[in-house]
C-alpha cells in the first residue's frame, strides 16, 4: 500500500475525533476544551512544552483518564469516555512515555501479550494444547515472529525485558503494540532518551509502518526535527489549550507556537 498523499489525507476519512474535551484533576486543569481529529493513514504529531497536556490527551483517547466534558468519536461511534478495554478491542494500541513493559517476562512473552484479544479459544483447549488452541497459538506466534524480525530484535527474544537497555525496551514496547494489529497507534515520546542512531532506527520503523501497513499513528515528540520530518499534521497544546493545528510548515510559522516555545514577555 502506498502512503497517502497530503491531499488524500486532507480529504480523508476521520478515524478519531475529539470534541471539546476538558479534563481536570481536582483544581488542576490538564486539558481545556480541546478539539481535533486524526484521519485514516496519517501521522499526527502532538507537541507542546512540558505540562501542556499531551500525555493526558493520549490517556483520554485510550481510556485511562475520564474527561469531565466533551465527546470522543472513534470509528463513527461517539461516547463521552473511552474505556481501556473498549479502546484495545476497537484497535487502539499505545506505548508509554516511561516504558511500561512486563519486566519479568521475556521480550517474546511481552509481545505475545499484545495478542491477548486475538486469542479467544476456550480454556480447556488451551490446557490440553490440542486442536484449535494449538493452531491458534502457532498462528499468533508466527505473526509475532514477523514483528520481531521487522524490529530486528531476534537476538533478545528470550531475555527478560527488565535486563535490556532502554533503547531495546522501547522497541519491544513498540512490538507489543504492533502485535495488536492496531488501527490507531499512539506513541508517547517514542524517541525519548535515545541516542541519534536509535532515533533514526525508530523513525524508520514509524515511517515503514505508516507506508507499508497504512497504520494511523499519533505521536508525542519533543524533537522538532523528527516531528517536522515524520508528521502530516501537527497539533500544538500549551497549558492544556490548543494553540495551533496544521501542517508542520504552518505550525512552525505560527506566532502563538513560537511564543509558547520561546517564551514571551507580557
Amino acid at each position, binding site marked *: 500500500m502506498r502512503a497517502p498523499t497530503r491531499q488524500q489525507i486532507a480529504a480523508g476519512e476521520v478515524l478519531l475525533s475529539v470534541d471539546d474535551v476538558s479534563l481536570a484533576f481536582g483544581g488542576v486543569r490538564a486539558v481545556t476544551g480541546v478539539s481535533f481529529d486524526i484521519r485514516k493513514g496519517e501521522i499526527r504529531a502532538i507537541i507542546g512544552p512540558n505540562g501542556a497536556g499531551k500525555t493526558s490527551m493520549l490517556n483520554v483517547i485510550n481510556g485511562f483518564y475520564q474527561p469531565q466534558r466533551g465527546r470522543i468519536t472513534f470509528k463513527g461511534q461517539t461516547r463521552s469516555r473511552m474505556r481501556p478495554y473498549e479502546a484495545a478491542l476497537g484497535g487502539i494500541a499505545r506505548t508509554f512515555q516511561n516504558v511500561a513493559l512486563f519486566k519479568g517476562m521475556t521480550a517474546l512473552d511481552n509481545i505475545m*501479550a499484545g495478542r491477548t484479544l486475538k486469542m479467544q479459544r476456550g480454556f480447556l483447549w488451551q490446557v490440553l494444547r490440542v486442536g484449535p488452541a494449538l493452531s491458534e497459538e502457532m498462528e499468533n506466534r508466527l505473526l509475532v515472529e514477523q514483528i520481531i524480525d521487522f524490529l530486528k530484535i531476534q537476538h533478545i527474544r528470550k531475555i527478560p525485558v527488565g535486563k535490556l537497555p532502554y533503547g531495546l525496551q522501547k522497541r519491544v514496547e513498540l512490538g507489543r503494540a504492533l502485535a495488536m494489529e492496531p488501527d490507531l497507534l499512539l506513541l508517547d515520546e517514542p524517541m525519548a532518551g535515545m541516542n541519534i542512531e536509535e532515533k533514526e532506527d525508530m523513525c524508520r520503523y514509524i515511517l515503514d509502518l505508516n507506508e507499508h501497513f497504512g497504520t494511523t499513528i499519533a505521536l508525542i515528540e519533543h524533537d522538532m526535527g523528527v516531528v517536522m520530518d515524520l508528521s502530516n499534521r501537527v497539533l500544538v497544546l500549551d497549558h492544556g489549550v490548543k494553540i495551533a493545528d496544521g501542517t508542520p510548515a504552518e505550525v512552525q510559522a505560527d506566532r502563538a507556537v513560537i511564543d509558547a516555545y520561546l517564551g514571551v514577555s507580557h
Partner: protein
Amino acid sequence: MLGPVLETLIGGLLTGVLYSLVALGFVLIFKASGVFNFAQGSMVLFAALSLARLAEFMPLIVALALSIVIMIALAYAIEFLVLRHLINQDSIILFMATLGIAYFLEGFGQSIWGSDIYKIDLGFPTNPVFVLESMFPGGLLIDPTELIAAVICAVMVLVLAVFFQVTRVGRALRAVADDHQAAQSVGIPLGQIWLMVWAVAGLVALVAGMMWGAKLGVQFSISLVALKALPVLILGGFTSIPGAIVGGLIIGAGEKLSEVLLAPILIRTFDLAGGGIENWFAYVLALLFLLVRPQGLFGERIIERV
C-alpha cells in the same frame, strides 16, 4: 530410632501439605497483583466458619456447595467495592486494602457466624492407622485425616498449576502483576482477572479452612495459620505454585524433625529448658533463606537494572 523419626517425618509432611494449601492462596493473589494478601488467613477463618455453621442445619455436601457460593460472592464484593477503585495504585496501597479486608472479615465473620469454637466433621476415619508393621516394631502411625487432606491438596495443586501455567491466562496474570496500565492497554481486563484469582483464592481458603477446621476445630486462631504460610512463601518463592508445595513440605517436616532431633541436642549442650522449637524453627529457616536466596527456591529471579 529410625521408626519414630520416620513417623515424625511423615506427620510433618502431612501437616506441611496443609501449610502449602494456605500458602497457595497467597501465591495466587501475589501472582496476579504483586500484592501480599494479608486477608488470606481471615478468608480461611471466614470460609471455615461458614462451612461449620451451615453444616449444623444441612448435610455437609450442601453446606460445602453453599460455602463455595459464599466465597465466590465474597471475591466479587472485594473486586467491586475495593480493588476496582485501586487500579494503577502502588502495591503498598493494595496491601493496606487487604489489611482492612482482613480485619473486616474477621469481625464480620464472627458477627454473623458467632465466635465460639465449632466443629467440622468430615466423616473421615479418625482412628490412626498403623503401616509397615513388618518393618518397624509397632509400625508407623499415620493420621488418616491428614492423609486425605494431603491427597485433596495434591489434586488441587495439580489443577491450579495446569490452569495458571499452561494457559494464556498465566501470561495475563504475570502481565497484570507487572504493570496495570500496560496490561489494560493490550486489552487484558483487570477486573475479570482479579475477580477470578480472588475467587480461586477463596476456594483454596475454603479447602484449607475445612481441613484445619476438621483438625483443630473452627476458632479464631485458625486465621493465624496464615502466619505459618509466611516462611513457606519465603522458602518457595512468592510467585511459584510448586514452590508453595515444596516450601510447605520442608517447613512442615523441618519443624517436627527439629523438635525430635535438634531439641535434645540444644537442651544437652546449652542446658536449656527445651521445647518450643516448633514455634520458631520455620522462621529461622526462612531468615537463613532470605540471606542466601531471596527469591525463594522457585521464585522468579529478581531483576534490577541500575
